[in-house]
C-alpha cells in the first residue's frame, strides 16, 4: 500500500477519536502490541535524538524493500514511532525518499506533533529518510 494511502487510513482512524485522551489511548494500544524489538539493539547507535524519552528506530532491508523496527521507554512516544514505522515499512527506499507527505500536518496529535524545538517526531521522520537514502546508495 502506498505511503499516502497508509497515512490517510491512519488519519481516518485518529479522526474517529473525539479528544486527545482517546488518541493517546489508541497510541498506547499500538505501543503495547509492538513487542518484537530486540533488547540488545536498544543502544545509542539506533537512538533517535531530540526525543524527551528514549526512542529507537532500526531499518532492515528485504527484497529491495525497507522495514522498520521501533521502540521507546515511554508509551505514547512508542505508539507514535510504531505508527510511523508501519507507514514507512514495506516500501522501497525510492518511495520513502520521494514521499512528500507532511505527517505533522496530516495528524492532529496536539502537543506530541507540535513544532517544538526538540521535536522528536521530526527527527524520527528525518532518520527514516536518511536510512532510505543510505540503503538506496548501498
Amino acid at each position, binding site marked *: 500500500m502506498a505511503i499516502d494511502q497508509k497515512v490517510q487510513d491512519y488519519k481516518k482512524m485518529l479522526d474517529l477519536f473525539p479528544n486527545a485522551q482517546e488518541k493517546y489511548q489508541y497510541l498506547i494500544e499500538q505501543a503495547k502490541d509492538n513487542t518484537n524489538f530486540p533488547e540488545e539493539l536498544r543502544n545509542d547507535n539506533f537512538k533517535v535524538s531530540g526525543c*524527551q524519552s528514549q526512542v529507537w528506530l532500526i531499518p532492515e532491508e528485504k527484497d529491495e524493500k525497507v522495514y522498520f523496527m521501533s521502540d521507546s521507554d515511554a*508509551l*505514547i512516544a512508542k505508539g507514535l514511532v510504531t505508527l510511523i514505522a508501519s507507514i514507512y515499512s514495506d516500501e522501497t527506499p525510492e518511495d520513502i525518499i520521494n514521499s512528500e507527505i507532511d505527517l505533522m500536518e496530516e495528524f492532529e496529535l496536539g502537543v506530541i506533533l507540535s513544532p517544538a524545538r526538540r521535536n522528536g517526531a521530526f527527527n524520527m521522520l528525518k532518520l527514516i529518510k536518511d536510512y532510505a537514502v543510505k540503503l538506496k546508495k548501498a
Partner: protein
Amino acid sequence: MSEFVDIKKDFPIFNREINSKKLTYLDSGATAQKPQIVIDAMNNVYTNTNANVHRGTYVLSAETTQLYEDVRKKCKKFLNAYSSDEIIFTKGATEGFNFLANSISKKYLKPGDEILLTEIEHHANIIPWQMVAKQYDLQIKYIKIDENFSIDLDDLKEKISTKTKVVSITGESNLSGLLPDIKLISTLVKENSDALFILDGAQLVPHRKVDVQALGIDFILFSGHKLLGPTGIGIVWGRLDLLNELEPVSGGGDMIEEVYYDRATWAPVPHKFEAGTPPYVEAIGLGAAIDYLENITMEKVSQHSDTLRKYAQGIFSDIDRVNVIHTNEEFAGCTFSMYVDQIHATDISLMLDTYGVAVRAGHHCVQPFHRKLGIDATFRATGYIYNDENDLDVFKDALLSSIEMLG
C-alpha cells in the same frame, strides 16, 4: 487564604480552556503567568512613551528612562539593597551567572582556586563555572545533598577552605523545594574562607521576602519571568564595593564613558555592566510585577506557598506507585518532583495535559542530580500565588486517572 480567592481573575490566561478543561497551571517553576497589570505596563510603553533610554533629549525618551530607572529603585527596595546602583539588569538569571562567573574569574581567581556548588544546582549555576574553570584552571567541588534532599552541612564544612574563592548555591531548589538556611551557610562560608557568596534566587525571590543585607550575601540573581514579569529581563544584585572593582564582560553602547579609537573608559556602576540597548520594556514590566507582589506583600505570598505546600504534602504522601522528591525540612517551597514506577514522566505529563493540567516533565535542568538518583526524568508540580487547593486536587485526580490509563 482569603486574599487569594479571586486572584486568578487578575491573570487573563486563566480564561483559557485546554482540551475543553479549565487550565490547571502547575508549572510556575518554569515560568509564572502574568497579571494584566504587567501586560498593561508593557503595552503602555509601546503605545504611549516608547523611545530608547539614556539617549534622547526629548519627552518620550525622558519618560521611558524615568520609568526604566524607577524599576531599579523598586528592586532596591524589594531586595533591601544598600543602593539602587547595585541593581544590574540582565536578560535573566542564566545571563547573570555567565556575567558573574566571567567577571569574577577575570578579576579575582587564579589557577587552583576552588568554586563550591551543591549537587542540586540548576545547570545555569554549573555550566558557566565549568566554562571558566577550564579557561582559568579552577577546581569545582560539589556539596553533597543528604537523604532528606537537604544540604549536608558537614560536607560543606569539609570542602570549604581558604582555597575556596566562590560559593554559589540555590536559595530554593527547583527540584525538591529545599530552602537552605542561607544565613547559616553564608556565616559558615565567611568564617571558613574569604569566598564570595552568590545566591541563586531564581526560585526563591518569587516566593520569599529576600533581604540581601540580613542574609550576609555578596550577590543574588533572579529572572523576571518567574516573578510574574516578562521574559528577557533579570536582575543581578551585588555589593557596591565589589561591583566597582569588577570589569564588564560585554562592551558596546550604554556602558561607556569615553571612547577613543584605541581604548575606552567605562560608565559608573551599574551602567558599565549593561552594554547595548537594555530590555527597558521588559524591565518596566518587571517593575509592575514587583508592584503587584508588594501590594499583596511578600509575607502573604510566602504564607500562601506554605499553605499550599502543606496541603500538597498531605495529598501526595501516599499515592500508590508515586515517588515524591521533596525535602522533609520544616520549611520548603511548594515544588514536588515525582516519578511513577514503570511509567515514563513524559507519558504522565502528556496524559495530564488532556485534563488541562500543565506540569513540567524532564530533568528540569538538574541532570547531574537526576543521574545521581538513578532516574531519567521526573514530572514536577509547582504552586504559586494563583494556585489553590482545588488545583492540587485536580492534579491528583488527573494523575490517578493517568496512571490507570498508562497501566
